[in-house]
C-alpha cells in the first residue's frame, strides 16, 4: 500500500519481490479437501475475537463478550463472533432432552420436543439482535477505546424456526383477555421476560437455526426466542417455557435492570424497542489510517421499528452530511450495511453516521438524547457516534454534537 504507492521507486527496480519471486503456494501442492471437515478462519485472522470489557462486570458467567465490529463486513455476523451475554453462564444442552412448554391463558397447555418443533411450519428471517445495554458506557462521557466495546453487543443472523403465533394458535390462546407472554429460559437464571402479545403474534420466532446451522450453545442451543426489534435480553435463550398472561410479570431483568433512569428519579419500565441507530465500523476508534487519500467509509444501521430508509455521513463533525449507499438487502429489523467514499486530505476530521428509519425517525445526537433522558441512564443509547481522525491518522472515540 503506502510503501509502494509512489511507484517510481518500483518502476526503476524490477518490481515487488512478492510478484517476481513466485510464492511457495504457486509452486507446490496445497492441502486436500475436508482437511477441516468443519472449517475455521485463517491463522492470520486471530486478532478478531469476542472480548470482555475489563471492569464492566465482576464475574465471567454474568458478563458480556463483545463482537469485533471493527473488522467485520456486510450484515451477517459470523456465528463464532456473535456477542455473548449470559446471566448465569452458558450450557450445551442435549436437544433430545429439551422441552418447550406453553401454558397460562391457553385452552390446552402443551409440551413440545425438538422433534415436534422442527416438524412445524418454519420461517427463515434475518434480524439484528442488540443488547439494551449496548453503548451504555458512553451515556455520560467517552469511556471505551473501540467500536467493539462501544457497539459490540450487536449481531445479525438469519434465524429459522416456527412462528410463535403458530404455537399460540394451536394451544388456543385466550384471544379476548391475553395481553402479554412470559418467555422463560432453561438455564440457571431461568431468565424471564414479558413480551407484548402484539409482538408475539407479529414476527416473533421460536428459533433453532442461526446462519444455516443450529444455534450455537452460547446463543441458546437448541432453542431461543427471536423477538425482532426488541432488546436482546428478551430473546430468551435455552427457551423452556412460554406463558400467556394478561399483565406484565416485572421479572428481575425488567424491574431492576433494563429500566431507564430518567432525570426526575423515576424509571421507565418495559422499554423494549431498540430505536434507530447506526455506527461507522471502519475507520473507527483505535484504528490508524495508512495514509492520505481514498477510503471507503463503512458502517451499520438498524431500527427496531422497521427498515432503514437512509444513512447520512459527515466527516466534519456534523456540519455537512452526504447520503451513503445502502447495500442490499434492506430488511425490516435487520442490520443494513452502508458505504460511502471519502478522500482524506490528512487534516483532522470527525466522522459520524446518522440513520433514518422508515417511520421517519432520525437518529439523535447524544446531547439531544440527554436533553430528554438525562445522564443517569444506562440502556438504549442510540446516539450518533463520533470518531475523530488525528493528523497522525489515528482514530479515537470522542463526543461532538
Amino acid at each position, binding site marked *: 500500500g503506502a510503501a509502494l504507492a509512489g511507484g517510481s521507486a518500483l518502476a526503476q527496480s524490477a518490481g515487488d519481490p512478492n510478484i517476481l519471486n513466485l510464492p511457495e503456494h504457486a509452486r507446490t501442492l496445497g492441502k486436500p479437501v475436508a482437511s477441516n471437515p468443519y472449517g475455521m478462519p485463517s491463522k492470520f485472522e486471530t486478532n478478531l475475537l469476542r472480548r470482555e470489557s475489563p471492569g464492566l462486570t465482576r464475574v465471567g458467567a454474568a458478563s458480556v463478550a463483545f463482537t469485533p465490529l471493527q473488522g467485520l463486513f456486510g450484515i451477517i455476523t459470523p456465528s463464532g463472533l456473535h456477542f455473548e451475554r449470559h446471566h448465569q453462564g452458558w450450557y450445551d444442552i442435549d436437544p433430545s432432552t429439551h422441552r418447550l412448554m406453553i401454558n397460562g391463558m391457553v385452552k390446552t397447555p402443551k409440551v413440545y420436543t425438538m422433534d415436534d418443533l422442527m416438524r412445524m411450519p418454519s420461517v427463515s428471517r434475518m434480524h439484528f439482535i442488540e443488547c439494551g445495554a449496548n453503548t451504555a458506557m458512553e451515556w455520560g*462521557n467517552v469511556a471505551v477505546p473501540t467500536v467493539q466495546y462501544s457497539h459490540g453487543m450487536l449481531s445479525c443472523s438469519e434465524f429459522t424456526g416456527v412462528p410463535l403465533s403458530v*404455537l399460540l394458535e394451536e394451544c388456543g390462546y385466550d384471544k379476548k383477555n391475553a395481553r402479554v407472554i412470559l418467555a*422463560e429460559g432453561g438455564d440457571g437464571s*431461568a431468565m424471564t421476560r414479558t413480551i407484548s402479545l402484539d409482538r408475539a403474534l407479529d414476527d416473533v420466532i421460536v428459533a433453532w437455526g442461526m446462519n444455516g446451522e443450529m444455534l450455537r450453545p452460547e446463543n441458546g442451543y437448541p432453542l431461543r426466542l427471536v423477538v425482532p426489534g426488541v432488546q436482546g435480553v428478551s430473546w430468551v435463550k435455552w427457551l423452556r417455557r412460554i406463558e400467556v398472561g394478561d*399483565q*406484565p*410479570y416485572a421479572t428481575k431483568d425488567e424491574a431492576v435492570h433494563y429500566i431507564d433512569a430518567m432525570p426526575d428519579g423515576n424509571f421507565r419500565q418495559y422499554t423494549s424497542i431498540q430505536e434507530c441507530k447506526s455506527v461507522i465500523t471502519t475507520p473507527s476508534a483505535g484504528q490508524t489510517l495508512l495514509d492520505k487519500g481514498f477510503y471507503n467509509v463503512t458502517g451499520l444501521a438498524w431500527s427496531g421499528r422497521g427498515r432503514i430508509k437512509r444513512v447520512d455521513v459527515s466527516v466534519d463533525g456534523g456540519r455537512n452530511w452526504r447520503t451513503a449507499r445502502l447495500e442490499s438487502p434492506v430488511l425490516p429489523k435487520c442490520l443494513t450495511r452502508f458505504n460511502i467514499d471519502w478522500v482524506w486530505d490528512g487534516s483532522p476530521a470527525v466522522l459520524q453516521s446518522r440513520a433514518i428509519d422508515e417511520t421517519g425517525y432520525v437518529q439523535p445526537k447524544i446531547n439531544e438524547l440527554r436533553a430528554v433522558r438525562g445522564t443517569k441512564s444506562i440502556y438504549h443509547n442510540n446516539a450518533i457516534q463520533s470518531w475523530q481522525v488525528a493528523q497522525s491518522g489515528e482514530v479515537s*472515540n470522542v463526543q461532538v454534537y
Partner: protein
Amino acid sequence: APAAAATATPTGLGRPATAAEVAAWDIDVRPDFKGLPKGSGTVAAGQVIWEGRCASCHGTFGESNEVFTPIVGGTTADDIKTGHVAALKTGRQPQKTTLMKVATVSTLWDYINRAMPWTAPKSLKTDEVYAVLAYILNMGEIVPDDFTLSDQNIAEVQKRMPNRNGMETNHGMWDIKGKPDVHSVACMKNCPVEPGVRSTLPEPSRNAHGNIALQNRTFGPVRGADTTKPAPT
C-alpha cells in the same frame, strides 16, 4: 410481516402438558402475587440462610459489589412512606442498589426462587425463599426484626417498598408504533454544531482493554493503534 400466515393446517404436534409438569416449571410470581406458593419464613431464619448461602457473594449486609451491585442500601424511612427513593433524584448515592430500584416485592421473591444462590439455583425451599427475602427486607428496614413474611402478608409489605411508585410506562418503547421521545432533524448543510470536542477518551482508558493493535487485522485499510504507547500528536 405477520408470521401467522405461515400455515393454515393445524399440525397436531406437541401434546397436552400434565398438571405435574406445569407445576414443575410454572414458577413465576407476578406483581399481583399470582403464582406465589403458600409458605412463610422469619427474618431470623432468613439471616441464617443469608449468612450461610448468600453473604459470601453479596456481603454480610448485602452491601458487597464483589460479584454484583449491592442489594441493600440507599433507601430511607421517608422513601418507604412516599414510595419514591429520593436518592435516585438527588444522585446522592451513585451506585444504585437493588432495593433502591425494585418497585415490586414479587420480583425479588420470583428471582431468588428461580436463580439464587447463583451456583445452586432453584435449591431453596419455598419457606427458605420467604425467610431470606424477609431478611433482605429487614436489612433494608422495610420489615422489623421479628417479622415473618408469608403469602398472607406480602401484599402489605408491597405497600412499604421504597421505590414502589418509581416506575412509569408512559413511553413509546413498548409498542412498536409507540411515539419516540427524542426528535432530531436531518440537517444536511451548514448544520449547527457546538464548538469543539466535548469528551475524549481518558488517557488511562487508552490501553485498559489491552493493546488495540492486536485487536485489528495486520492488513487492510487501517492498522490497530499501538495503545501501549501514548497517542501520536
